[in-house]
């Protein structure tokens, strides 16, 4: 009997493990369906979320936007231009191919190849060569010392692909096939409707707790909510409507998620247009607008007035920073008078048609009127706003900036004068700011780099080629069933650690 007892115990135990045999299925709804699952050919956040579950990168960010190892276990800089990555061994792609340094080389070169027309090519702009030293060592050489390299490699656009899988699928790669090394495998995509993923049992960190993930695209806010309330979906990972959040947070059937977003909203000023060339006028406009009132009215309180050009969750944000410009209409009037605009002036605010931006523009208009500035609002198509403002728009413009998660991506494109004509839409040139940003890019020592960016932020606030507005919050909600989900500031939340309660 004794002999059999252990067998019996073993049987019971193994049975107990078998019992939760129900397939754990997580159903999420995003605002839109994916556009492709080829990471090198997309630029939208909804595709990025699915891509994040299928693929891995050399390095990743954690929920505090700090760099953590992914396919690379460790890395070092033998000199200021060289990055050597030591890769994880024994990793397999979903098609069974082993992951080696050649896959990294292939992926980076595919991104940089103009024929791929990859929207993410900009992240590797400074890369001159990628070399597979051996199967598990990769050497990346940059044109100049480039500190944001690691953050660029965390981006979904720089995910690692498998050459065989890509050439086997041909033009169908990204729609009928998607092969990575991530915790979930691509199963199917019904266009405009949903993407189905299943657990990758061979994932290098062990299999995920969830068996199946279904990503649906539901464009209507109301429908997404109804689906959550009626049990059709389990999780809304971001883009939760601001006006509904309080209700759902009060309801104890749901869990809610709230974190500061990487993006900031601002009103840019084309400094080549009169009178925005005058620093006093720009400062006056910054003092004239009550940002907290806009947070409350437009974002239902889910945000904070900007504490400078960067959101607090971006690497390099200076935690010592206070409100960039507290509301002070008297000071605004004084500055305007000093600049010779005691009677104000006329201007136009350009915005696209998104409710929040339009409403914010309307409130700005009202606050500016209080100090004598007569603003009118002109609405434009999103892509027209982008291209017109890049070429120099005739006044102020409502825009947001998300960047890469690193201070460089949050500042250099927007404030460096080399980017006038594209992403420096203020058309503002300051040698001081340029020098600091260049120094930040070239300083590989992270602590020294933080100090450089702190100085740059101070300087940008002082010179203010824009009206600082708001750092929004990201909101999400799920049923109680969903456990361990974390919203990430970059809006791309991994599902590997999520479990489902019965």
């Amino acid at each position, binding site marked *: 009997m004794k002999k059999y007892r252990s067998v019996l115990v073993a049987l019971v135990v193994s049975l107990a493990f078998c019992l939760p045999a129900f397939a754990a299925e997580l159903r999420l709804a995003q605002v*839109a*369906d994916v*556009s*492709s699952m*080829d990471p090198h*050919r997309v*630029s939208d956040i909804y595709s990025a979320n699915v891509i994040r579950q299928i693929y891995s990168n050399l390095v990743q960010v954690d929920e505090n936007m700090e760099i953590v190892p992914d396919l690379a276990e460790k890395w070092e800089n033998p000199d200021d231009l060289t990055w050597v990555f030591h890769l994880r061994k024994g990793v397999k792609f979903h098609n069974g191919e082993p992951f080696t340094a050649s896959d990294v080389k292939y992926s980076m070169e595919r991104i940089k190849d*103009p*024929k791929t*027309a990859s*929207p993410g*090519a*900009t992240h590797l702009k400074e890369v001159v060569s990628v070399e597979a030293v051996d199967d598990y060592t990769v050497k990346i050489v940059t044109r100049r010392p480039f500190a944001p390299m690691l953050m660029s490699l965390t981006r979904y656009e720089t995910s690692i692909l498998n050459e065989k899988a890509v050439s086997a699928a041909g*033009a*169908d790669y*990204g*729609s009928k096939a998607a092969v990575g090394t991530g915790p979930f495998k691509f199963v199917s995509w*019904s*266009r*405009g*409707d*949903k993407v189905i993923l299943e657990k990758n049992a061979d994932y290098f960190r062990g299999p995920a707790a969830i068996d199946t993930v279904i990503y*649906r*695209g*539901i*464009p*209507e806010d*109301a*429908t997404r909510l*109804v*689906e959550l*309330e*009626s*049990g*059709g979906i389990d999780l809304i990972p971001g883009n939760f409507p601001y006006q509904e959040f309080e209700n759902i947070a009060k309801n104890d059937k749901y869990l809610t998620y709230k974190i500061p977003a990487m993006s900031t909203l601002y009103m840019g000023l084309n400094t080549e247009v009169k009178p925005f060339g005058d620093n006093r006028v720009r400062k006056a406009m910054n003092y004239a607008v009550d940002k907290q009132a806009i947070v409350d009215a437009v974002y239902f309180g889910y945000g904070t007035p900007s504490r400078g050009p960067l959101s607090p969750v971006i690497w390099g944000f200076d935690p010592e920073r206070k409100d960039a410009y507290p509301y002070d209409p008297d000071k605004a009037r004084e500055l305007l008078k000093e600049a010779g605009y005691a009677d104000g002036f006329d201007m136009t605010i350009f915005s696209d048609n998104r409710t929040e931006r339009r409403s914010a523009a309307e409130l700005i208009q009202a606050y500016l009127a209080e100090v004598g500035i007569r603003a009118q609002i002109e609405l*434009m*198509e*999103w*892509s*027209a706003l*982008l*291209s*017109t403002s*890049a070429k120099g728009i005739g006044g102020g413009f409502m*825009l*947001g*900036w998300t*960047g890469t998660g690193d201070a460089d*991506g949050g500042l250099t*494109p927007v404030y460096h004068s080399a*980017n006038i*004509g*594209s*992403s420096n839409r203020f058309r503002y040139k300051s040698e001081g700011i340029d020098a600091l940003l260049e120094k930040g890019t070239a300083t590989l020592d992270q602590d020294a780099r933080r100090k450089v960016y702190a100085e740059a932020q101070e300087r940008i606030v002082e010179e203010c080629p824009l009206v600082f507005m708001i750092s929004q919050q990201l909101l999400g909600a799920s049923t109680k069933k969903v456990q361990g989900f974390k919203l990430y500031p970059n809006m791309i939340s991994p599902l590997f650690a999520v479990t489902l309660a019965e």
Partner: protein
Amino acid sequence: MLRYFLKRLLFLIPVLLGVSVVIFSIVHLAPGDPAEVMLGPSATQEDISNLREQLGLTKPLYVQYGIFLTNALKGDLGRSIKSNAPVIDEIMERFPATLTLAMLGMTFAIVIGLPLGILAALKQNTWVDALCSFFALVGFSIPNFWVGLMLMLLLSIYIPILPSSGFDSWKNLIMPMIVLGIQTMAVIARMTRSSMLEVIRQDYVRTARAKGISDRLVLTRHILGNVLIPVVTIAGIYFGHQLGGVVITETIFSIPGLGRLIVDAIRAQDYPVVQGGVLFFALCVGIVNLLVDLLYAVLDPRIKAQYRAAK
């Protein structure tokens, strides 16, 4: 008859050609372009012009139109800029949902609207008539996205019997069918009522009655056939209207149809998908109108006779 059909079919060619010119011009003359949308606010001018080159957007407009037209004639509508999939595949993948929805909406409209109109006319100036007319008026006046949200609240949350979105089973189709069909239903009901009232007073109806034919036979033999002619016209026109309304319905209920494909493509300035999608829509509307005209000839012997005489 065949001549009639062929004549109508030939009319489709200039219509489609016209649509292709109009949609091509609108899409290309509108501000912004797909390269800018794809690359977002951080793009440099160099990135944008590189992508533009890749997408073939740097060629002169008439050349681009020529390429588009020649390929379209061969049945090739190009590839989506966003997903890189052939446009024709995307359309064909989405079309069944839209067609199903439009047909169901039309069926709903006819099945409810026609009896409602007949009933109202037969009981003219009674409370039944008033009720039917009120129902039709309400159906026509309320915005359909609102109907959609209310139905969802009622049937997905308060009495949870129907799923609120998706396209997985017949249950997904009930609410969209009502939302899509309700306006056409109202129009058909009102049209049927007035057409009935007109026909009832015709001499041939009075003659039939005078001959002692039963009310029922008069209704089915003498009245309905004539009532149907204007109703079919309206139904045909509104079918095209419904294909447009599909955009809203598909968005509310998150149905992967052609309407949403085109709207998403417009947002992304995905030129080939917008062009291909609209052209395909135009073809559908054209074919439906053609079918309605044919049905006309079947229903109305006078039209058939006209063509016979012409022979």
